[in-house]
């Protein structure tokens, strides 16, 4: 568990925020550039001192302006990966990896070099010099170096932002493996909601140095504040559930999310946990149950809220306790007389829904100290 509360004033910038990140999950700090994300990283790592505040990591007070506690960065055991990998240019890959490992100072060392080399695919790179690496390889080495420092918290500050799309797709699977296999709480800073959807369980929404909202990904997706910050691209709903059936011939997975059963065109294995993102613009609303239609999901829903946007309306729908978003035009709202408490049908194309394997750390055995209470995660 990480508790963070800090305020800081600069000439043109004011930061005053508070959030907590349940361990051992991945918490995303999401916001536009200039929102204060990197300042939070520096404050957490101990590279910057807040004017007032309190930072507590797993019951250890790292900073407290009231009592004057301020643990220096070198003793916080919070390892960082920055956008520009920041590998030491005078050392080779192996020496870079071992830099933090040699300075662990009596902390337990559950993460072995062999494990990291395997997990991040670094075997072929060990003898290389840093300037011979591609951008994606640099970030993998940087990740390995941070993990081998045996951190109590891993801080990833836009680790993919300086990579092109191809390199990003090369590194993302490694981040997913790391999330699934290494039990260290991670704070992931990003301005790409796509990355947040793929990696994070909790989101802290930042703007102008303040927290606009925070909570599980599925709930934050419903926040008007997110829609205002991130735009149409991220408007959609997140449904998490497990695969009950996968039809190999059709390439269709049936996923059970609470009482809702959704068919999506995603390759998956039965019982696997999936996170499904349904873009709001791909959901069609019908007043009657349509029979002969190509969409694989016709879901009876109830409208709970209308969120007017520029040029369209975002309908917040509910089905069996789960939320679904649909973006429709103002004229559709008028003609269909869509309003709160109206019951209708949501048509969701199986091919429009994006599915990601997402075990969710809270579901993983064994339950150790720091593991969170059941039911907190969907």
């Amino acid at each position, binding site marked *: 568990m990480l508790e963070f509360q800090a305020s800081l004033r600069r000439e043109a910038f004011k930061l005053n925020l508070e959030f907590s990140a349940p361990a051992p999950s991945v918490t995303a700090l999401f916001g536009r550039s200039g929102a204060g994300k990197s300042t939070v990283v520096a404050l957490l790592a101990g590279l910057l001192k807040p004017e007032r505040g309190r930072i507590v990591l797993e019951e250890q007070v790292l900073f407290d302006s009231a009592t004057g506690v301020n643990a220096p960065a070198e003793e916080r055991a919070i390892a960082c990966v920055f956008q520009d990998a920041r590998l030491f*240019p005078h050392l080779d890959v192996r020496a870079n990896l071992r830099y933090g490992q040699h300075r662990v100072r009596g902390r337990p060392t559950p993460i072995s070099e062999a494990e990291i080399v395997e997990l991040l695919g670094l075997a072929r790179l060990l003898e290389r010099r840093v*300037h011979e690496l591609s951008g994606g390889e640099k970030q993998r080495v940087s990740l390995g170096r941070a993990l081998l420092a045996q951190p109590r918290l891993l801080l990833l500050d836009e680790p993919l932002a300086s990579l092109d799309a191809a390199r990003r797709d090369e590194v993302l699977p490694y981040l997913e493996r790391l999330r699934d296999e290494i039990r260290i709480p991670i704070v992931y800073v990003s301005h790409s909601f796509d990355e947040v959807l793929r990696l994070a369980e909790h989101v802290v929404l930042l703007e102008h140095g303040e927290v606009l909202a925070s909570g599980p990904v599925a709930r934050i997706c419903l926040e008007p504040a997110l829609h205002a910050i991130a735009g149409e691209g991220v408007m959609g709903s997140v449904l998490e559930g497990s695969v009950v059936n996968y039809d190999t011939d059709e390439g269709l997975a049936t996923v059970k999310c609470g009482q809702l059963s959704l068919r999506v065109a995603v390759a998956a294995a039965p019982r696997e946990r999936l996170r499904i993102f349904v873009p709001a613009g791909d959901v069609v609303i019908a007043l009657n149950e349509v029979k002969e239609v190509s969409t694989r999901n016709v879901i009876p829903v109830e409208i709970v809220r209308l969120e007017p946007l520029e040029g369209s309306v975002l309908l917040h729908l509910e089905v069996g306790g789960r939320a679904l978003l649909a973006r429709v035009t103002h004229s559709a709202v008028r003609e269909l007389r869509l309003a709160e408490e109206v019951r209708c049908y949501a048509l969701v194309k199986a091919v429009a829904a994006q599915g990601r394997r997402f075990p969710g750390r809270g579901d993983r055995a064994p339950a150790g100290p720091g593991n969170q209470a059941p039911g907190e995660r969907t």
Partner: protein
Amino acid sequence: MSSVALSPSEWQAFWLSLDVAARSVLFSLPVAIVVAWLLARRRFLGRTVVDAFVHLPLVLPPVVVGYFLLLLFGTRGPIGSWLKSTFDLQLVFTTAGAALATAVMSFPLVVRAIRLSIENIDPGLEDVARTLGARALDRFLTITLPLMTPGILVGTVVAFSASLGEFGAVITFASNIPGETQTLPLALYTALQTPNGDVAAARLAVLSVGLGLAGLLASEWIARALRRRFGR
């Protein structure tokens, strides 16, 4: 034949020049590293004054520097008399004195070269080292110092070459004593003052040009080798 070969006294001047230059670099390098680091990485009161003071020898006539050294380090100067009474060490009219004079003169060149290389180091690297558990001295020794080596090496070569040619400050502070403080330029000057000394002067001049070129080539070669190593 005799007109090409160096005379024993000229050889003496040659070796003495190398000796003085080597000692001067040895004197100035550790101080220059600290000063360069302070100027590049620390904000402190009087930083501009220190900066200007360091660069003073570049803009002052060398004779003036020699004169101030005489005032400070002369047998009756505040530092000179203390050195004499405490360590029985005399700098005026000695090889060590010549080395001190050249060290002061070449100091700004060393500081500039090292400072430039420190300013080229991304402070983010030192931050990362901190988060990986490295304390201040550890960081300096394992990150900052290795990354400054290009500047230190280039600064050393430049300072060494410049020291070989220092004239005004040496002759003012340490005088022109063969075998003790008479380095190449001083020997050359003496040869020019001597009747029929022009052949000797030419030999010494060619030797100086050769040494200077060797120094410049060495610094260029080092810079290139380091660029390859760091891939910049």
